[in-house]
């Protein structure tokens, strides 16, 4: 079976008014089916750009991006991924149910099938009685759940998320993290998740991709030896192994690589 995502030798240069901005250089990344991978790094290091390349919302300057063995472009046309941003981006004039139904309607699914699928999705993300509400009647956390349900509507095997919990309070955030792991396990979808929170990346991921800026590149990939993501629960947050992984990611972020490599080694 082909990888969910294969990024090979990707550079991304933006031509802006002030000149050229090198957002990414020589990025290579594989994401296996069902794998949870987080991208972490200081702001401006190209996390969103990498995610948007996978989503075919941008095209690479050099290199290739493949999703399930086809080009990112074809994968987008075939709706092979679902996407969620920091802003839920719900249409305020549509109810929760109608927002979730949007991608299904656009692809011409018959009305009765749409209704059945929307009911499933509402149950999956735990929005029970809120199908008839409008987005401005929901809390930020609930809006984000609607956005996740919408991203999952077409049963994609890849979920792309750009700081989806970035604007939420800590309690809601931790709750939704556990919910996301359950949903990812139930659907079997691979997830590429952008965050700037180390504990969030550690708690969620099979592997944490640490990026560094100027120019944006992958500095290190840190595997999380914390057991399968589907079986993680809140007690992990107080476990010693969790703190070890947080330390490992932090050191990779700060360019030390202390545990992994002797000092003075070039920090790729």
């Amino acid at each position, binding site marked *: 079976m082909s990888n969910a995502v294969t990024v090979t030798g990707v550079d991304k240069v933006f031509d802006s008014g002030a000149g050229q901005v090198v957002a990414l250089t020589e990025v290579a990344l594989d994401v296996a089916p069902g794998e949870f991978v987080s991208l972490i790094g200081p702001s401006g290091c190209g996390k969103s750009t990498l995610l948007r390349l996978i989503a075919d919302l941008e095209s690479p300057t050099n290199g290739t991006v493949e999703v399930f063995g086809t080009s990112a472009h074809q994968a987008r046309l075939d*709706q092979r991924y679902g996407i969620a*941003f920091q802003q839920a*981006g719900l249409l305020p004039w549509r109810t929760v149910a109608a927002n979730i139904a949007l*991608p299904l309607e656009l692809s011409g699914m018959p009305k009765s099938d749409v209704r059945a699928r929307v009911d499933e999705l509402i149950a999956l993300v735990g929005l029970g009685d809120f199908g008839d509400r409008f987005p*401005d*009647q929901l809390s930020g956390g609930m809006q984000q759940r609607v956005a996740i349900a919408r991203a999952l509507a077409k049963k994609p095997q890849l979920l792309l998320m750009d700081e989806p919990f970035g604007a939420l309070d800590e309690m809601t955030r931790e709750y939704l993290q556990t919910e996301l792991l359950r949903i990812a396990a139930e659907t079997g979808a691979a997830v590429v998740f952008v965050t700037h929170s180390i504990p969030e990346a550690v708690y969620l991921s099979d592997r944490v991709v640490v990026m560094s800026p100027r120019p944006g590149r992958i500095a290190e990939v840190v595997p999380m030896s914390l057991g399968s993501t589907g079986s993680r629960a809140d007690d992990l947050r107080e476990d010693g192994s969790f703190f070890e992984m947080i330390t490992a990611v932090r050191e990779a972020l700060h360019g030390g690589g202390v545990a992994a490599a002797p000092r003075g080694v070039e920090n790729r």
Partner: protein
Amino acid sequence: MATLTRTRPPSGPLGRTANGAERAIAPVVLGIIVVGIWQLLAGTGLVEAYLLPSPAAIVDEIVEFWPSMVSAAGITGLNALVGLVAGSLLGIAAALVASTSRPFDGMLAPIVAALAVIPIVALAPVLNTMFGADSQTGRQLIASLAAFVPVFITTARGLRQTQPVHRELMTSFAATRWQVMRTITLPTAVPYTFTGIRLASSLAVISALVAEYFGGPRGGLGGLISSSAASSAYPRAWAYVVAAIALGLAFYLITLALERWVSRRR
């Protein structure tokens, strides 16, 4: 984003929030006070009756000429309504064309700017002559030109207000251009259009009224105001002015209600 309320409370000009009853009572009380002072002033003979007739005299005229007042409001109101509907439809159509094609946008923008600065009622004598002395067409045309401008401008603006996150989602759904138009661009623009229609409603009434001052068939409110004033029947002229204000207010309130309703549920 985390609000639980369905609509935001309207806030007054001073930023205070007031409930519906309070907001209605304040202008009514002010109106009563002003009319009271006016009546007292007219009673003292300080102001000549032909300059400013007393409210009571005006009310007498309204009662006496009620049927003529209703039919006159009907004539002027119909002209304004035809103009408002035609001008709005034209404004929406032109804004849609401008938003889908850059060359058209470049062509339409200066034309609309020119239309906006022409005192449109200045066209009244010309149009009245063009369409003949017994036709309302010239007046309706003037009202529609007046309505066109604000509806075009607000709609054109509304069509550019789609949020980037909505556009990107539609791209991720591989939506067609028409699907994007139908599901996000148009619903985003609708409240803007209705704001334009509310602004246009007053302009349409004023233009339809004033156009009657420049000849054409009599019987509308504007014509009756000018002929009453010409025959020195000042209380009657004022009575028709009151009817004109009521007509303008009716147009404004109805379009305001439409705007409110539409922006709550697109």
